[in-house]
C-alpha cells in the first residue's frame, strides 16, 4: 500500500440544485489494488463514478491521475489517461459481432488513402487472442455479442478495456444482473486484471462479492463517506451494517480518512 495512487478523488462534492448528491468524498486506487465502492441506492455511487470517468465534473475537490490534477472534459479524455469505465450498459451493440464490438470506436485499419478499410482479419484474430488470453470463453468472435451470456458480455467489456491500455478499471455493478456462476467468472477476470497491475474500482451492493475480492472498501451513505476501511479491519457482517448506515460497533477508520 505504499505505492502512489494512480487515480484519486480528494474531497469531491457534487450538487444538483440545493441537493448534495456527493459531499466531501475521497477515494484512491493504487496499481494492483481493488477498491470496492459500496452503498445502498441513492448513496452517490453513480455520481462518484461519473466524476471519476469524466462524464461530469466536481463542484468542489480535485481529481488527480498519477499525482497530477485533472479536469476531464469527456469520458474519452479520461480514457486517454488510462481510466476505463465499464458502465452497466457495457457500451456494446447486441446485434454486432463480438470482434466488431471489441474494437468499437477504435477500429484497426489497413490500406491506403480512400481505400483505407477496417482490418477485419486483424480485428478477428486480435479479439480472439485477447479474449483467450484473459480466459474469456467465446467460441466464435464473429457471432453477435447479444448471443453471449451476461457474464460473457461483461467479461468481453473488461477484456476490451484492458486491451486498450486501462491503468484503472471502473466497473459499475458488474455482477448485479448475473447468477452465481457468472458472477464468479466476472470476479475472476477482475482478479486477473488486478494481478496484471491494474487498479480496479468495483461498484457493487453485493457485500459478499465485495468482501471476496476487495483490498479496501469505501462506503457511501446518502452522499457522504462513512469511511474507507482495509479488509483486515472489518468483518463481512460489519461491512453489511455499514452499508445500511449503521455506524455502531464498527471501527472508526480514522487512519484511512483524510
Amino acid at each position, binding site marked *: 500500500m505504499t505505492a502512489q495512487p494512480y487515480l484519486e478523488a480528494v474531497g469531491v462534492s457534487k450538487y444538483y440544485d440545493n441537493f448534495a448528491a456527493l459531499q466531501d468524498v475521497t477515494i484512491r486506487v493504487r496499481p494492483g489494488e481493488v477498491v470496492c465502492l459500496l452503498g445502498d441506492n441513492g448513496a452517490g455511487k453513480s455520481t462518484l463514478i461519473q466524476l471519476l470517468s469524466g462524464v461530469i465534473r466536481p463542484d468542489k475537490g480535485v481529481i488527480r491521475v498519477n499525482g497530477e490534477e485533472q479536469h476531464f472534459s469527456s469520458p474519452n479524455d479520461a480514457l486517454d489517461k488510462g481510466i476505463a469505465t465499464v458502465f452497466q450498459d457495457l*457500451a456494446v*451493440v447486441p*446485434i454486432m459481432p463480438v470482434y*466488431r464490438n471489441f474494437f468499437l470506436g477504435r477500429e484497426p*485499419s489497413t490500406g491506403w488513402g480512400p481505400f483505407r478499410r477496417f482490418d477485419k482479419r486483424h480485428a478477428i484474430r486480435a479479439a480472439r487472442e485477447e479474449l483467450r488470453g484473459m480466459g474469456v470463453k467465446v*467460441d466464435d468472435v464473429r457471432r*453477435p455479442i447479444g448471443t453471449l451470456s451476461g457474464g460473457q458480455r461483461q467479461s468481453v467489456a473488461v477484456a476490451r478495456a484492458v486491451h486498450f491500455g486501462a491503468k484503472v478499471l471502473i466497473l459499475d455493478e458488474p455482477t448485479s444482473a448475473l447468477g452465481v456462476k457468472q458472477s464468479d467468472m466476472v470476479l475472476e477476470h477482475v482478479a486477473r486484471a488486478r494481478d496484471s497491475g491494474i487498479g480496479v474500482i468495483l461498484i457493487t451492493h453485493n457485500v459478499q462479492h465485495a468482501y471476496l475480492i476487495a483490498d479496501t472498501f469505501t462506503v457511501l451513505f446518502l452522499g457522504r463517506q462513512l469511511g474507507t476501511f482495509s479488509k483486515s479491519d472489518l468483518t463481512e457482517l460489519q461491512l453489511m451494517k455499514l452499508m445500511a448506515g449503521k455506524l455502531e460497533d464498527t471501527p472508526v477508520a480514522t487512519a484511512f480518512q483524510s
Partner: protein
Amino acid sequence: MNSPVQSGRTDAPEARVSLRSLLVRPEFTAIAGTIAVFAFFAIFTGDAGFLSMAMTRNYLEVAATIGIIAAPITLLLVAGEFDLSVGATVAAGEIVMSYLIVYAGWPVAPAFLATVIVAIGIGALNGYLVVKTKLPSFIITLATLFIIRGAVQGILRMLNGNSVIDGVRSAAGEDPLVWLFSGMVGPFSVSLIWWIVITGLAAWVLESTVFGNRIFATGGNQAAAVRTGIQVDRLKIMLYIAVAASAVLVAAINIFTINQGNANSAVGREFEVVTAAVIGGALLTGGYGSPIGTFFGALLFGMVDQGFFFTPLPDVWFLTFLGFMLLIAVVINNYTRNAALKPRGSSQ
C-alpha cells in the same frame, strides 16, 4: 425456413454456424424473393413478353432509379434514421439542373455540380435538424418533404407559370456528359451501371470500412456508440448528404431520359426506396441492413412494377400485390433476425 435451422443443430459446429449464418444474412429474403418473382413472371407471362429484351431493359431502368437512392438510404436506415424527403429532392434537383441548362445556358458539368451543391445543402439541413432537435427523423423529413416540394412547385410557377421545364436535351446539345446520365451500355441504359457501382460502394463502406462499423454501432445502440467516442451526429449528417446526392443523380438521369424537368417528379419515391431497403433486410429500428439485399429489393420492385401489366389483373392491383410482398418480407426478416440474436446456451 424452420427445418434447416433446426436440423443443422445436430451437425458439426462449423457446418451449423455456416448454414445459420447464411440463412440469417439480411439479403436472404430479397434474393429468394427476386428468384421467386422472376420465375413467376417468366412462367406465367414469359410468352406475353416478360422475358423480352425490351421488358428486361424497362424493369432494370425502373429498378435502377429506385436502387440508386435506396443504397445510401440503406446506410441511413442502418444508422437508425429515415429520410422521407428524397422524392422532393429529386424534383428539386430536376428543376435546378434543367433551369441552369435550359434557361441559363450552362453546360452539363457545372449545372450538375451546382445541383450537387444544392443536394449537399438539403442533406446537411435534414441531418442538422435531425441531430439538433433529436426529434424522430420521420417527422423532420416529412416536414422538409413538404417544404422542398412546395418550394420547387412555387418557384417554378413564378418562373414560367408551369410545373415543368421542357427541352433539356436540345438545350444540352452535343454535350458529351449527357451520355453519363442517359447513354446506353449495350442494350441497357447507363443508369444500370450507376446502380451497380453505387450499390457496390455502399456495400463496401458498410461492411469493410471503419465508417461502416460506426454506422452499424450508431443504429444498433446509439448510447454505446457515443460512449466509445463515435461522433454520431457528424456520421448522420454525412449520410443525409449522401442520400440527397443520390437523389439528384436520379434527377439528372430523369431530365435527360425524359427530356424534361418536372416539379411533380418522383412523388412517392421515398416509400419505394424504403420498400426496397426493407425487402432487402434493413430494419427500420436501425443496426441491420444490407446494400446488396436492397439491390435485390429494388430489382424485385422493378420486376413486379413492370411485370404486373402482363398479368390478367388490372394494373390498379399492383399496390396491393406490392403490399403483400412487403408484408411477407418483413415477417421473414424479423424472424431471421431474431434467430440470429438468439443466445445459444451451450457455452455458458
